């Protein structure tokens, strides 16, 4: 099995003029290919910070971060962008769809950045929208959709380029329970077809969909256990 993520003593510090806050304190963890891992912890424990670092959306202040077997902590902005577009998919709590783009255009965006041709883009977007049961909504704008539908669009966008690693930050946080259940079902389905999923959540219910849970408190890993250990 291939190692998807490996961090050693990962650190992140936020500084303002007067205060210095250690958001992540020597975090070491590994995630293997094909895993579905949940990161849990109370508000402010550093879950989202960790996810941002793992998704190369932010830079660590110390430690090592390997993604797909490569050390990335010294990557340039260009290298990080390259890795993001080829290998990572993101699902956010607030969906983060671009309001000015239609459903189709939002989902198509990662393929544009990969330089995929128009015909292939169309085919792949339609395929994934169909799978998410959103094809009939392709020309709608995000604000014309329900929260559940918006999150399904976000999942579609995250997986349209078939990334090996999917990062989800509180994906059900803004959804009613039925829609939340749908989205978690989708993530599970993706995981079963080979995508590694790393999900940040503070919901015990959501965490049950994962096969392993990493618990954070005050920027440190305090507990790791697999599903059968809940």
């Amino acid at each position, binding site marked *: 099995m291939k190692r998807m993520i490996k961090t050693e003593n990962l650190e992140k510090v936020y500084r303002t003029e007067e205060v210095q806050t250690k958001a992540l304190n020597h975090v070491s963890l590994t995630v293997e290919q094909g895993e579905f891992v949940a990161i849990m912890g109370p508000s402010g424990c550093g879950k989202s910070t960790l996810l*941002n670092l793992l*998704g190369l*959306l*932010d830079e660590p202040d110390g430690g090592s971060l390997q993604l797909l077997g490569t050390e990335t902590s010294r990557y340039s*902005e*260009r290298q990080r962008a*390259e890795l993001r577009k080829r290998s990572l998919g993101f699902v956010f709590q607030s969906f*983060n769809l671009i309001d000015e783009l239609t459903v189709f255009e939002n989902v198509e965006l990662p393929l544009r*950045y990969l330089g995929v041709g128009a015909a292939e883009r169309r085919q792949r977007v339609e395929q994934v929208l169909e799978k998410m049961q959103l094809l009939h909504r392709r020309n709608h704008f995000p604000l014309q959709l329900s929260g559940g539908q918006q999150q399904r669009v976000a999942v579609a966008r995250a997986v349209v380029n078939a990334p090996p690693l999917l990062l989800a930050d509180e994906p059900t946080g803004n959804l009613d329970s039925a829609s939340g259940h749908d989205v978690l079902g989708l993530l599970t389905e993706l995981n079963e077809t080979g995508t590694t999923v790393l999900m940040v959540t503070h919901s015990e219910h959501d965490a049950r969909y994962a096969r392993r849970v990493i618990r954070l408190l005050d920027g440190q890993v305090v507990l790791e256990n697999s599903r059968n250990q809940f």
Partner: protein
Amino acid sequence: MLPYPLLLLYRNFKRFKSTFFINLIGLSTGLAGALLIYLWISDERSFDRYHALDGRLYQVLENRRTAAGIETQGGTMPLLAEALRREMPEIELVATTTPVPFFPGFTLVAGGQHLDAAPKYADPAFFQLFSYPLLVGTPATVLRDKNGIVLSEALATKLFRSPQNSLGKAVEWQMADLKQTCLVAGVFAGVPRNSSEQFDCVLPFASFKDLMHMNETIKWDDEGPFNTYLALKEGADPAQFQAKLAGLLKTKSAQAQAQGRTLFVRPFAAGYLHGTYENGVATGGRITYVRLLALIAGLILVIASINFMNLFTAKASRRVKEVGIRKALGASRAALVGQYLTESVVMALLALVVAVGLVQLVLPQFSELTGKPLVLRWEPQLVGAGLALALGTGLLAGSYPAFYLSGFQPAAVLKGKLPTKAGDVWTRQGLVVLQFTLSVLFIVAVVVVNAQLAFVQHQPLGYDKAHVLRFETAGRAARQQAAFLAEVKKLPGVVQASTVLGGFLGGRHVEEMSWRGKRLPVGTMLVNYDLLETMGLHLVAGRSFAPQFRADSAAIIVNQALVAGLGMPDPVGQQLDGARIVGVVRDFHYESLHEKIKPLLLKLDPTINTVLAKLQPGAEQATIARLQQLYAAYSPGFPLDYTFLDADYQAQYVAERRVAVLARYFAGLAILISALGLLGLAAFTAERRRKEIGIRKALGASELGIVWLLTSSLTWLVVVAIVLALPLSYLLMERWLEGFAYRVAWQWWYFAAAGLGALLIAWLTVSVQAWRAARRNPVLSLRAE
């Protein structure tokens, strides 16, 4: 389906309509201004460039050392062309011509028709040197026959119905008391508008030499008023030729060498824009205005671009989330920079389309304003310039927002919050300050230019320019000039009349004179009896010329500048270069106020032909009718073309008047665009501080207090701009005023008016938004949060 960048622009437009329109109006008016200036500049640059030999075509100029420094002029002697042809093998063609205008009141008569014409006498090579296509005749031979004349197509058609029909026909020309008959040897198409010289008939220079008996009198020692043009052979080195030419005069005339006269050549086409010399060094000319307007165009575009930058970055907080998302999805910084630059360039191209429409709309007025019939022709050059302007503006306007927005860490902006950096606020405020600095600069320029023009209007000139009619005589009125003038004086409505050579206003032929060892360059004005009385010139000593003093033919009247220049303690009765001074006239401005009043002498010559008649105010039309009757009786068929001296005086300031009007328009444009930007920024500030306003109002702040809260920060920016602009505008306008020997003194209120004007405009703009924000129900603002 729209292309992707257009689609994004369209959706952004829908989301931020007012910003879109502010940007569109700002960029399109800025581009329209720049395009108009481009049209004007390219027309200026096209002058004299249409000749086939352009690039090898030169004019010979002469530097002369005088007491006042080196004087440069285009006047040369006709012996020069002959010598150049013989001695300089690198010359392909050379010709002497009379300058234009040289002959006032030149009339062509044929078949009972009298037509005013602008003649030029030229050597046979003229039509080979210059590309004035001949409809009849061949370039090499058309000026060979001394009795020939080459007419413009328009003249030939008027006189003989068609160019072909005119060949060999007799035409008589008349000028003052001279007349001669010649035969039409050729017809040329005419002189294009973008020629620095306008003429409509060309005669052989050889006939002019005969007429003036020049062959017997000209020598190398003389200074000549004629122009010499030449074309170098292909491959000839202009620098080497220049070196040879510089040494030519001293081999011909010891006197010329002693006077420090040297020759040099200037590319013919350069003369139009680079015609001014100071102390022998080229100092510019019309190119100054070309550069000034190019600078104005650039500044207007900068102001318009700043709007775009400011509004784009101001609304960035609404777009940063998008930046975060795109980055998370793998967009590189370069891709984002590309996207935003594309957006701004597309915006600029859209603005270009609107700008072209605006240009079409105002082009007739702009043409009138600039005195050029400009047209928008879809030539590759214009299209290229338009696209380059739009592209440059788009990139300039888009560069800051593009690099600003794309530089954020995705994690920091994904939550939609804009990380506030002090530097960004400073940059945005700095840009507003820059905009208003430029606007205040324009306002000061408008105020100063107009003040100077008013000064020019009201400056005592030393003579009375009102109700003075000027015209040239021809025919019998010229031949019997004294009788004609006597009858003019008797006409009811004519207060007084006299004649002067060429005209009352303008530079004079200058010669160096000496008195008791002191040397001084002195201008000469040839005048008739009663000139002082006609023009209201004041004598400060001595008397005017009068027929009862027979010796007055060798007498002169001098101005105070001459007396002061030579330091004469008691000038009346003194001899100056063989002439006796009989009177001293108070200094008067015979040149424009650009020039200091220079030493001048008035010399009596009752034969000269430019009539000046002082009319009784109120009865001008009736008096002119009587004059026309009298003139028709003397010179039947000859048109009486007159101008008022007042109009001639105003004509000296055509360039300044145009600058004044243009400055007014472009200042208006700059202020409009800046105010638009401020409006957008104020709207944005009000929006961003909505919650703060709500809280303040809930805590009891008054509406006026909220208005002050929102306007005060922008007021300070404008105040800083004013403080920066005032010294800068002083320096710039001081340089412009230095071009006038007589000029307004600086007034404190010029700056006060400009500063207050800018402040008032800024306040009006911002308070509209501030009031709207202040009157909003605080409950709504707080609930929205």
